[in-house]
């Protein structure tokens, strides 16, 4: 990008943190309140987009050494493989299950296998969106 804007950069530093936290919150809370893997992934991706907009791509790439192509592939793989798990227990492909556990600090907590699946979707979304934006911005 190469836009030299001190205010944008300073604000971005703080805002990116907030957006990332919000994205993770959305991802985790999707089971019972608004949110979920897709939106969570999109919000996370928008945090990365903000970084790329306010700093140049090289700086961000050095700071976050993630290959987003591989991240998206990993996400898809995770989503597909999470569907194979239930087959081991004689269930249908992609069948999800859940149960309630008493954890030390959180108290009675629900743990659902859908979390793995949603994580796969979220990673796919992050990977694909950032990858597309990076590809286009590098096309000079």
């Amino acid at each position: 990008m190469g836009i030299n804007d001190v205010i944008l950069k300073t604000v971005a530093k703080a805002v990116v943190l907030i957006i990332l936290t919000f994205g993770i919150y959305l991802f985790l809370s999707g089971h019972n309140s608004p949110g979920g893997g897709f939106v969570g992934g999109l919000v996370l991706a928008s945090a990365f987009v903000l970084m790329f907009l306010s700093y140049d791509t090289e700086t961000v790439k050095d700071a976050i050494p993630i290959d987003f192509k591989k991240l998206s592939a990993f996400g898809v793989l995770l989503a597909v493989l999470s569907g194979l798990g239930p087959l081991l227990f004689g269930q249908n492909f992609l069948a999800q299950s859940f149960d309630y556990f008493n954890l030390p600090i959180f108290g009675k907590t629900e743990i659902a296998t859908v979390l793995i699946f949603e994580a796969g979707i979220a990673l796919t979304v992050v990977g694909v969106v950032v990858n597309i934006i990076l590809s286009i911005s590098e096309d000079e």
Partner: protein
Amino acid sequence: MHLLIFSILLPFLTAALIPLIRRRIGDFNIGWLVLFIPVLLFGFFASQIPLVSSRETLLSSIEWIPSLGINFTAYLDGLSLIMALLITGVGSLVVLYSIYYLSPTDSFPHFYAYLLLFMGAMLGVVLSDNLMVLYVFWELTSISSFLLIAFWYHRKNSRYGAQKSLLITVFGGFAMFAGFLMLYAMTGTLSIQETAAVMGQLTEHALFYPAMFLILLGAFTKSAQFPFHIWLPDAMEAPTPVSAYLHSATMVKAGIYLVARFTPIFGGTSAWFWTITIVGLITLFWGAFCAIRQTDLKALLAYSTISQLGLIMSLLGMGSAALHYGNTEAGALYGLAIFAALFHLVNHSTFKGALFMVVGIIDHQVGTRDIRRLGGLMTLLPVTFTFAVIGSFSMAGLPLLNGFLSKEMFFTASLNAASMPGLFSTSWGWLIPVIAWLASVLTFIYAMIIVFRTFLGNHDSKAVEKRPVEPPIGMLISPAILSILIVGLFFAPNLLGDHLLKPALEQLLPGISGASPDSIYAWHGVNAELLMTIGIVLIGSVLFITFDRWKGIFKIQPAGWTFNALYNYALTSSENAASFVTRSYMTGRLHQYFFYILLFFVVSTGGTLLLSDALSISFVQDAPISIYELMLVIVMIITAISILFTRSRLSAILMNGVLGYSISIFFVLFRAPDLALTQLVIETVTTALFLLCFNYLPEWKREPLPKRKKARNAVLAIAGGLVITLTGLSVNSIDLFETISSYFQNSYELAGGQNIVNSILGDFRALDTMLEGLVLFIAGIGVYTLIRLKLKKEAGTDGD
């Protein structure tokens, strides 16, 4: 017992492992490791011989897609066992031979991975009882054949031959697939055994003959029957071990196998009888006729293979008559033809395999396969010469070799077929033995050409590049084993007949006893068959010696009037037509693409809406419109209209964003927080994307369109909006189905989640979500590749 299924999968598993182990073993030839697989499998199948010869079968089934009746069912009977032994037996010999044949610069891992892929697919074809599974393996053999023909892909001819074989065999495969579906429609089962059991009552069914012809099309293309034989000579561009294995011993026999396998289903009808017999006889004659004029030894063998496949095919046709006569004397008489077909199937694999290996040795040691440059190799390659004599003379049907036995049976069968009582009688029946005899004379001539033109005469050392010496011993082992089999089968044919051929025959001709001979004899006394053979030797010798005087006969056929020319013409004209059609609408102009998309949408959706009388608008169930909603709608309408009149791209993008955010406010008003959230974030990300692309877009200017086109676009745009609006209103007004929302209300009990939207996405309809993720991923990779491709192109060729 799932060992049978495992035997099909073993070659695939090994092929998958080859890329992993090849890095570990350095210089060691991977072929030795691969050799282990067919030898092991051969041992396994050989150990099943006692079981099959005691008239038992082996069945092993795993449910695959039970809801569609598709089970992975492996079925081993006499016929499958003969084929499986050929596949693994010849496979072992070919792998051993190829270790010495390939040059160190060739990619061994690729070669053996393809070869194993083929072996597994071919075993799958002959062992599958389920039609769908059989079809999948059938196409896999075509694909692995394609890969192996194009093994030396830097050669133009290899690529041409590979494409040709793929186009023709896959075309046949598709036809066969349609035939299978028709069979399923008739019988309701995909199992071949069950189909054969119920087919007797269905001969009057409307689909009976279409299914038969479509399946035969698959068999004829695969087994290179006239006029689909043209792919086989071009397939000779493959390395010689591949030609010996796929294109003479196994894959081209898949069509024969299919015809034999379907004989109990379709056999006994006159259409089946005549189609296969006539096609087989034409192929037999035409293949032999073309073989004589070849100057390339491999091309000669290719045509001879076509001819021999025609012979086996015609025998299967003649033998199918037995099912018409049933368990009578006539039935047993004609059933002999199928016995002869199975016998010749085995014999052909032995002598043709040996001959291909001999030609491979000549090519490898001398450097050419051109008959005109070869000669006098007898003293230089005495061992190879011995194998060539044994193979060729067996093919010619001379005594003391296995070809003699099956050739005599072929004559018996053709004489029997000439005079059939009842349904099959015709005044043209005498033609069958005549064509059989003529083709055998031609066969004799080209068998002599192989031996005498290559090995006798004068050796012209200037015409060849290398000084020929015998190849390494490893290359001679495989043809030696085949040669021993050729002689051995002459002296002990009943070993094969009793243990394999008879059980196979009894399954193909159920309920007909006495079709197979008590035992196979070489000497029947002086009868018509023996006289025919003597005539072949006498007349064939005369014709061979005087070959130079009558070879002008080949000029009768005009040069442009070949099936190859027809194939090439069809290929180029279909390519031209396809690119003409594509170029006519792929103009590279975005607004034209939008025009197509919108037009298609308006016509298909709007048309359906009108034709099915679905248009109905009622506001009865609607809630009252609040003041907020009204204000939002007005804002959106104003924004949408003003986009049309903006003069800068930036403001257009921003106003588009206003539209998107307004929609998310609507979602908030309608208590859909998930949708609102998603819409908000998507709008943000896409606007950012838009701004990124901003720099690369061409200058914003109005397209100078003529008035008529402008009006046309306007009409289409309004129609598009109208269709969407009307569809939305109609959907809201009609209750076609019972509402399913009550089911999702239980999401907390069923999925443990209070957020219904996410329970649907992640649990109830998780498969949809998974596939959408996959689509998104593919789209992302697509964008990346397109942009990378463009960058590379610019770096490489400085743009276009």
